[in-house]
């Protein structure tokens, strides 16, 4: 009896304590998407490298997981969202920032390899790096796409995503239609003007109207034909559709970084000369048309020096032929052979100052080229807006959104501040054109906003913090892992094992 009392005295309070207060847990650990009367079980994304999730010049799984379609899929809670992933260091090798030397160079090692070429269904993310508007309906392999027809360049990215003939020689759109999507996003058109811009105006802009291919002499559809056909076809799916328009090429750091830095350098060193640059094409057999840009022109974006020119700014003022040596190497000829075709070039003159050794056209967008790119973009976007309205699609104004970030000097979302500065701004990846993990999350949220508004649903936004801190890390082989017993004790106990 005595021991029974002692037992009760000890046990009853212990029982109370163990069965006492509990925290109220909410039903869900974050704001949940509410699709109202809609259901989204299949989501498909169409687009180009921005949709594929390219970062730092590379399609690589470490960053593809943060593609905006994959992030949207996560917020929708769809069961599967398959992407054509590529192992580290990606295709092509991802650019890395050296924080000690500030150099940006490709990661060493062999190119990455595709992980799931054998996936037995079309991918949900059908974004093809390089794809133009025409390609969405028509391209099926590396040699029947717009780029191949325009430039005669093989385009292996098409094969990576569409995997024909195994998928029945189907196009990006056809593979989307096969999946009967409830929601489709479409962000296309950048490559119709971006190739022109990133080549310093050397590659053509897709004309708005139908035209004749200058290389083959064959008739080609212009942007209006391609986009109209595409929007009309997408509408036949009867899915919820969100489209984004074409960003202004003058927004990303690829176009804004070098000129700003160079002008600042000129001002700091008291260099009074304007930059002499080559206008037009790289055909210098007859002579060089040059323009000149003052530091003010460079600072306010009247001319845009490309990020690819960052390796040549140190040559300015020197009797330098570095550009022509590199250019000859790219073409696979000797520099003497190259210079023989351009008798007016004199590399003994001061590079970037003398009109016979100007800053090359391939590394600058001059005012005429900027105007052409802007005019094309503007025409494209008017059509996109008109067709989206006609078809009742949600529209995300990517152009206005990215331009406003530049004009406002940055943006703040969820307490995090970003700007369009190269490397440090947080919004763009190291290639200066494609976005970062956070940048794509912000794009995803903009798409979500557009969808929510158009279709009266409330898809929860991506939490920006959840995509920060994911620089690619080395993966550890399971065989090399050293297990910490203590951290595994919970698992062992659940499975009936015990350590102590």
């Amino acid at each position, binding site marked *: 009896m005595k021991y029974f009392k002692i037992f009760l005295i000890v046990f*009853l309070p212990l029982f109370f*304590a163990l069965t006492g207060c509990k925290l109220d847990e909410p039903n869900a650990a974050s704001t949940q998407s509410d699709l109202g009367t809609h259901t989204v079980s299949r989501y498909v994304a169409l687009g180009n490298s921005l949709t594929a999730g390219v970062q730092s010049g590379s399609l690589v799984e470490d960053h593809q997981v943060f593609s905006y379609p994959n992030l949207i899929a996560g917020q929708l809670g769809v069961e599967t969202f398959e992407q054509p992933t590529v192992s580290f260091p990606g295709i092509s090798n991802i650019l890395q920032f050296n924080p000690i030397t500030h150099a940006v160079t490709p990661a060493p090692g062999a190119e990455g390899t595709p992980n799931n070429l054998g996936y037995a269904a079309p991918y949900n993310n059908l974004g093809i790096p390089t794809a133009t508007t025409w390609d969405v309906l028509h391209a099926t392999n590396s040699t029947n796409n717009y780029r191949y027809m325009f430039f005669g360049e093989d385009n292996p990215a098409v094969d990576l995503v569409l995997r024909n003939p195994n998928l029945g020689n189907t196009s990006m759109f056809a593979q989307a239609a096969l999946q009967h999507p409830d929601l489709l996003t479409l962000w296309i058109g950048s490559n119709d003007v971006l190739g022109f811009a990133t080549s310093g105006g050397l590659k053509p802009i897709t004309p708005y109207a139908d035209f004749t291919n200058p290389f083959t002499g064959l008739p080609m559809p212009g942007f209006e034909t391609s986009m109209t056909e595409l929007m009309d076809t997408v509408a036949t799916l009867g899915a919820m559709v969100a489209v984004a328009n074409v960003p202004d090429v003058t927004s990303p750091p690829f176009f804004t970084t070098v000129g700003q830095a160079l002008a600042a350098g000129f001002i700091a060193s008291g260099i009074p000369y304007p930059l002499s640059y080559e206008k037009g094409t790289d055909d210098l057999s007859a002579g060089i048309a040059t323009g000149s840009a003052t530091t003010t022109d460079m600072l306010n974006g009247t001319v845009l020096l490309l990020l690819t020119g960052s390796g040549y700014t140190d040559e300015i003022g020197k009797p330098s032929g570095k550009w022509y040596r590199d250019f000859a190497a790219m073409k696979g000829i000797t520099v003497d052979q190259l210079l023989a075709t351009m008798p007016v070039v004199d590399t003994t003159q001061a590079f970037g100052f003398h009109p016979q050794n100007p800053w090359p056209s391939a590394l600058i967008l001059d005012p005429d080229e900027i105007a052409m790119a802007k005019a094309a973009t503007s025409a494209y976007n008017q059509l996109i807006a008109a067709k989206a309205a006609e078809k009742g699609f949600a529209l995300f104004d990517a152009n206005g959104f990215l331009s406003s970030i530049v004009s406002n000097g940055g943006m703040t979302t969820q307490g995090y501040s970003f700007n369009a500065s190269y490397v440090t701004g947080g919004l763009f990846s190291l290639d200066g054109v494609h976005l970062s993990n956070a940048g794509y999350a912000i794009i995803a949220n903009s798409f979500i906003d557009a969808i929510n508004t158009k279709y009266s649903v409330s898809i929860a936004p991506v939490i920006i913090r959840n995509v920060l801190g994911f620089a690619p890390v080395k993966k550890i082989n399971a065989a090399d892992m050293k297990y910490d017993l203590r951290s595994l004790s919970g698992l062992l106990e659940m499975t009936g094992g015990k350590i102590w």
Partner: protein
Amino acid sequence: MLKKFTGIILGLVFSVSLVFGSGFSIYEQGAKATAMSGAFIAQANDVSALFFNPAGLTSLTSNQISLGTTIIMPSASFLGPANLDENLYTAAKDLVFPPSHLYAAYRLNEKLTLGFGFYTMFGLGSEWPGDWAGRELATTSDVQTFTLNPVLAGKVSDNLSVSIGLSYVYGTVTLEKSIYAGYALDTYVESKLVASGYGLGFNLGIQYKPFDRVTMGFVYRTNTELKFNDGEATFALPVLQNEAANQLLAAYFPKTTGRSALTLPDLTGFGLAFDLADNVTFEADYVKLGWSSYDKLIVNFEDPVAGSTQTVSEKNYKDTYSLRAGVEYRFDEQLAFRAGVMRDYHAVPDKYLEPSLPEGDRTLVSLGVGYKIDNYTIDAFAMFLNQDERKITTSELEVSGNPYPFNGTYNAVANLFGLTVGYSF
């Protein structure tokens, strides 16, 4: 970039500050007293008086020794931060803390009693998931202090006793959190700070029986400055694919040391006990902790960091107090039932509340029993803590010198169980 990283290291050492507060003071230092929610300063009639009011030791009629443990099982959660998602819910890991106490009293003569106590007056910790939304503020925080407390208590007259004692306090701190290395590197470094230090304090107690059936008690413990001289900061670096980034991180996050001092608050307590009947005693106590002494934290470095050997961070804690009431009903010579209720107020202002110390105003209720058999005493209790939901909208926290407002809603509950076994001889 260099400046940014050194700033980060400073921020790490700052955070020594985070862990002390009302929520980290442990008043549950004896099962009998705690069963009455700690309303025991006036009664102080067992050997746990060493903690609650050592003057009460003079009422013991024999030598006594007791040993006990309080099992504290807190649960805490955070809803937010509001800038990310006001419905983002994170639960801290449910932890179990077993602060223990050991008391011994030896009667030198009819008037003088010598006592010795060991207890853990400040302690506890919090453990949030390693990848949670507040990882830059705190992931794992753990602090413990161990007090050795010799006391001399004496009877001045039949109805007045006093005591004086010395406290040697040894404290350990472990703090872990993440450091975000900026957009360019886009990775986290996990930091860990381990420090230990000691300090001395004094205490005095008074017990006075103005009338039959009425007892008053007063206790005062001085603040104690803990000196942390060899705080050691270590960093777990990510293994990035970018080798140059790995080199930079290794260079900027070396193992490093820092010094700091921290003042544990003084304690002032007053209790009033009535014998409502021969076998029923009621007591009400007021206990104040002087946290306002903790207005800023100063950290000194062995070598200049970012050109400075000293950093100062604002804390601005305020004094806090608790109100306690308890009752004991002695069923017979052997068996007693006890109950209590208390209200405890927060020390950390809204602006500076951090997840490492998710404290707030709270209400506690307690129940307990005591049983005497031969020379042994067994006391046990259960106690329930319910913290008021605390919604922060004015957070002014910083990370590496940059504003890092962490607004959201903190909730906490805790269940406690304690057992003390005494032996008299």
